[in-house]
């Protein structure tokens, strides 16, 4: 365990050296800027809405938008940090003095994973805090569901970190980042195909959409964010006409278990590949 923590600390220091915190602070500045932009909430902004109603609506809207922003930025940061993080060190020869030490390759892998996760976690906490403060500053409302939404949002950086690190165990920076982007692209197709399938009443598209949802479960994660946000949640698939007896936004614990299983399996594959590869 000491080896894992030592290497996690080293990974954090390396990220600091690469000025990752500047990227994180720049994104934080977006939230600060947004919070400070004058945008008074007035009665009558919404048709038929009094001030309290308007504030409530705006706070939910900002919660939804903010979770989307955090989801996007944290995923990009995760891919940027994890891409090539193992293969680059192998190529440079840095790991050739670490691997012969009395620590396992599993520890090295988890040390890196934990270090990167800490950086991502710190960034997400910072952005989330600024988001909540920003919403409160603008509307005077604290929408409690945002916490659950943000919690579900954390699945995104966790998945992209794990997936990209897994790719990095065998692929270069460019390739591992590229593979992760392809995975994200594939996942984007899920909701599009789902909606198309419903509009065209095509079971083939519907089936493809479901399969895509299992290849990269971003859609399922999105649904969990929506569920977490409660009535502030907005999901494109919610607007699709549902079939009788079917909910458009289907979240269940089996899906959550699948997401967690997906992350665990990605980690195991990454560890196995790293364990078997020559340095």
């Amino acid at each position, binding site marked *: 365990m000491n080896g894992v923590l030592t290497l996690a600390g080293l990974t954090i220091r390396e990220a600091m*050296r690469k000025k990752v915190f500047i990227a994180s602070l720049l994104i934080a500045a977006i939230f600060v800027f947004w919070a400070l932009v004058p945008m008074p909430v007035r009665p009558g902004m919404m048709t038929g809405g009094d001030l309290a109603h308007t504030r409530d609506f705006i706070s939910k809207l900002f919660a939804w938008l903010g979770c989307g922003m955090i989801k996007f930025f944290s995923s990009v940061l995760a891919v940027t940090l994890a891409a090539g993080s193992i293969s680059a060190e192998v190529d440079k020869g840095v790991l050739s*003095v670490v691997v*012969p030490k009395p620590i396992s390759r599993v520890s090295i892998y988890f040390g890196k994973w934990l270090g990167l996760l800490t950086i991502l976690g710190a960034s997400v906490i910072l952005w989330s805090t600024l988001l909540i403060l920003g919403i409160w500053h603008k509307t005077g409302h604290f929408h409690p569901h945002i916490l659950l939404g943000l919690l579900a949002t954390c699945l995104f950086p966790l998945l992209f970190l794990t997936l990209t690190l897994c790719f990095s165990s065998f692929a270069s920076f460019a390739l591992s980042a590229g593979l992760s982007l392809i995975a994200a692209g594939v996942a984007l197709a899920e909701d599009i195909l789902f909606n198309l399938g419903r509009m065209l009443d095509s079971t083939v598209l519907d089936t493809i959409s479901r399969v895509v949802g299992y290849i990269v479960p971003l859609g399922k994660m999105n649904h969990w964010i929506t569920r977490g946000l409660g009535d502030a949640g907005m999901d494109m698939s919610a607007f699709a006409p549902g079939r009788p007896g079917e909910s458009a936004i289907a979240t269940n614990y089996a899906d959550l278990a699948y997401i967690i299983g997906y992350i665990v399996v990605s980690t195991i594959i990454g560890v196995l590949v790293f364990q078997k590869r020559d340095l």
Partner: protein
Amino acid sequence: MSDGQLAISTEHLRKEYKGAFGKPFVAVHDLSLSVPRGHVFGLLGPNGAGKTTTINMLLGNIYPTGGSAQLLGKRAGDHSARAKIGFLPEKFQFHEFLTAEEFLDLHGKLYGMSADARKKRIPEVLALVGLLDRRKSKLKEFSKGMQQRAGLAQAILNDPDLVILDEPTSALDPVGRRDVREIVNHLKENGKTVVLNSHLLSEIEMTCDEVAILRGGQILRQGKIDDLLAAATTVRMRVLNITAPLIAALQGIAVTVAVNGEFVDAGIRDENTIPEIVSAIVGTGGRLMSLIPVRETLEDLFVRIIQDGQATPPPQAWGPPAAPVQGGPRR
């Protein structure tokens, strides 16, 4: 020699890579190596001989395709053995954003050393490699040679029983090389085993007790340096009045004979042959003006073995003692 007495023992170690179009490339071929404890052992070989691959297989950086290896009596990869091994790679690249002290502290932690042990040991090794006054400097501010010194400090930080140094002097100036030699001698005096992989044969000759010469992933020759070098010597002579009967007489005694003008090099099996050579020259009318016995250097031996390329050459074989060979003096 039992496994317990050996620092390194490999049996039929093999590494095969998949080459272009699936054609396999064998980097290390059936390597069986025994390195006794307390010795300074040199791994020699031309580029691509498989030295670094062998070292990396021993350390777990590369997985062997076949065979087995033991380090300090335990299978390669065993953590308790790794805790007693130090390693400096050939292509070293460290975390350059760390200071020398932080770098060693990191590796001390990875070795599982306690905070107290690290605090005591780090200044010691920094002083040993001459970097104590630069302990607060970042590695990126170091020259390549200084980084190599820091790497050496890392390799001996845990007071290892086995130190593997892959080209440890490649970036060092003559003073640095001498320092490394002194460190290696210091390790040897303390009963440590050192494996040196170096192209600098003079360094190896000065430092090592035993060497193995590799080519094409195979050991061509292994043994104590004194034994290997005592095996063959040359006498260099300046002779006047060289005649065909004189050369024929020399060929009957020496292993090889090379004539260039009035200079004659004769390869001999042992020094007892020298009086016979002198008698043969005088007896056939030659005038011996000078005779210098020249011991073969490690470089000579290395080049000869590599050029012969025999995995198991007959001892002391220099080539056919046939017709005189025209050529310049060997040095």
